[in-house]
């Protein structure tokens, strides 16, 4: 146990990495507290996997340090780090049974068979794969392989568990159930997990902290709610959840959208207004609202649990608006009908354009 409990478990300071002339990571700092479930979220090529591999020790940073519990582990290889990884595609040993796969790390660590067997069995039970113990990985389904890979890493009781796109290879149904299982697992064993994903719904569903990455930088870090409700810029806004992004000009602290003036602190610049499709109301007659723009319904799409309206507003921009079915049934609205789109100032954010 460390002396100060509020000190971060894992701390990266000024980490950079380039492959040849290509910069993968800009100077980057990251702290992960004990018990966190952090998701590194970003599009492919944003550097999230590079970052994960630096934490795991498979890559060494060009500059900067990696510390765990205050100990500098930058120069230490993955075989000596108290960190284990669930690989993308799982990386199971194809010629070893499930039991041998899960027991491998303990065997390497020099635990005698009779000492490691109970631990392996307990882990197989916990991951619900005890009945598969003597099968080879090639005989398992994707979801079962995933459990074996998790068991193999968790049996080592790592300080930090790394997961590289853990759910990417599973089909939608399985992904959903594995997601809640992973979250329960994290809660039960109380470990520290870091997960790489390009899927924003996965990040929101799994993690209690999200670091959104773009072009080798962490552009925003916070709780899922923070990031969803208060995106730092248009990149984050566009990446997390559905959003409408309307380009605006800010002059002397005021932005103008159609006939609305919105106060916004900051220097004169090209900015954008972000508003979620669910936060927009549509009405036949002009409502009293903070922000109101006239437009015309261009398309109506049935989406299952809601209806999506595509509205072309006066400025020429297109708004996506999600409304419950009931609003569609009132009769006045239809394709080509003029409407007023309105929303509250609290639901919209003026963001720097990226």
């Amino acid at each position, binding site marked *: 146990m460390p002396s100060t409990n509020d000190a971060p478990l894992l701390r990266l300071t000024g980490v950079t990495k380039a492959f040849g002339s290509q910069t993968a990571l800009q100077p980057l700092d990251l702290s992960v507290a004990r018990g966190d479930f952090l998701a590194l979220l970003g599009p492919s090529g944003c550097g999230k996997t590079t970052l994960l591999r630096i934490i795991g020790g498979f890559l060494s940073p060009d500059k900067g340090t990696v510390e765990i519990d205050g100990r500098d582990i930058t120069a230490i290889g993955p*075989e000596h780090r108290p960190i284990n990884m669930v*690989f993308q595609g799982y*990386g199971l040993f194809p010629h070893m049974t499930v039991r041998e796969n899960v027991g*491998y790390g303990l065997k390497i660590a020099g635990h005698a068979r009779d000492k490691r067997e109970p631990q392996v069995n307990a882990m197989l039970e916990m991951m619900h794969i005890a009945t598969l113990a003597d099968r080879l990985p090639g005989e398992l389904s994707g979801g079962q392989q995933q459990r074996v890979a998790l068991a193999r*890493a968790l049996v*080592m009781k790592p300080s930090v568990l790394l997961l590289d796109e853990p759910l990417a290879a599973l089909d939608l149904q399985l992904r959903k159930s594995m997601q809640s299982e992973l979250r329960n697992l994290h809660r039960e064993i109380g470990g520290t997990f870091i997960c790489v994903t390009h899927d924003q719904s996965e990040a929101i569903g799994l993690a209690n902290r999200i670091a959104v990455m773009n072009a080798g930088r962490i552009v925003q870090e916070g709780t899922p709610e923070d990031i969803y409700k208060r995106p730092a810029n248009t990149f984050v806004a566009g990446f997390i959840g559905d959003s409408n992004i309307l380009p605006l000009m800010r002059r002397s602290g005021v932005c103008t959208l159609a006939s609305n003036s919105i106060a916004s602190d900051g220097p004169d610049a090209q900015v954008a207004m972000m508003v979620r499709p669910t936060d927009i109301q549509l009405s036949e007659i002009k409502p009293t609202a903070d922000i109101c723009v006239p437009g015309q319904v261009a398309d109506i799409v049935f989406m299952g649990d809601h209806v999506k309206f595509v509205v072309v507003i006066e400025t020429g921009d297109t708004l996506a608006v999600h409304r419950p079915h009931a609003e569609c049934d009132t009769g006045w609205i239809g394709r080509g009908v003029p409407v007023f789109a309105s929303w509250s100032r609290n639901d919209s954010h003026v963001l720097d354009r990226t």
Partner: protein
Amino acid sequence: MRDARLRAIAAVMPSLLVWIGFFLAPLVYLFIVSFWRVRQYRLVTDATLDNYIAAGSEYQHAILFTVVLAGFVGLLTTVLAFALAYLIRFHAGRFGNALLLTVLTTLFGGYLVKIYAWKGLLGSDGIVNRALLETGLISQPITWLLYSPIAVVITLVSFLLPYAVLPINAALRGIADAPIEAARDLGARPVRILIDVILPQCERGVLTAFALAFFISAGDYVTPQLVGGPETFMIGNFIQSQYVNRMNAPIGSALAVVTMLATLAAVALVSFLYRRALRACST
């Protein structure tokens, strides 16, 4: 469905007929001849085991010597080929492909030309001795480099090495990176990764390489004849001389059959030991 099957069989047929006519039938004939006899330069159809008795007694020593020498060549070739393929796969980086291409272009350098070249390299006036004398490592030329079993081993290994790299390289390429990284992640050092993860997965490639090198060298007679000297007789030399010089095909055939059986047994033994050794090392 039936139609497609018939068409498929018809397509395979020409190749299969060549295989039967020019591989299977001659080998069966060879096997049958091994039970015959020769009297006054004429074949006598018989059913005698005399040739095998002779093979087991007179040629026992030659067969044993051949199996040991070929086994050594096979082992050395396989180890070097594995190291080379391992270097190409894991350590050579972007030079890997260039290295592989260099190895492969020496596949067909002309079998006889290579033997001839080694004869020039290894002689007491040859380049190897010259170089060693120049550097002062030796004061007298090493005379046993040429016309000795050593020369046979060197020549055969240099000829067989590219052939042995092929299957091992294919096997190593078939191993994914993730299990290797996973083993590292779980604390395994390079040697442990080699024993626990890599070698079990390229078993077939390694054994194919060994079998190829072993079979080819066990049946070779040109190399010992040209660089082996008067002392180094391998079974191939006896087989060839029984056929060509003494016109005794039956005993030559029996020797060929025995050699094939001995080498097959040796390869089976090696594959068994390979698995046993890996299992013993892994626990």
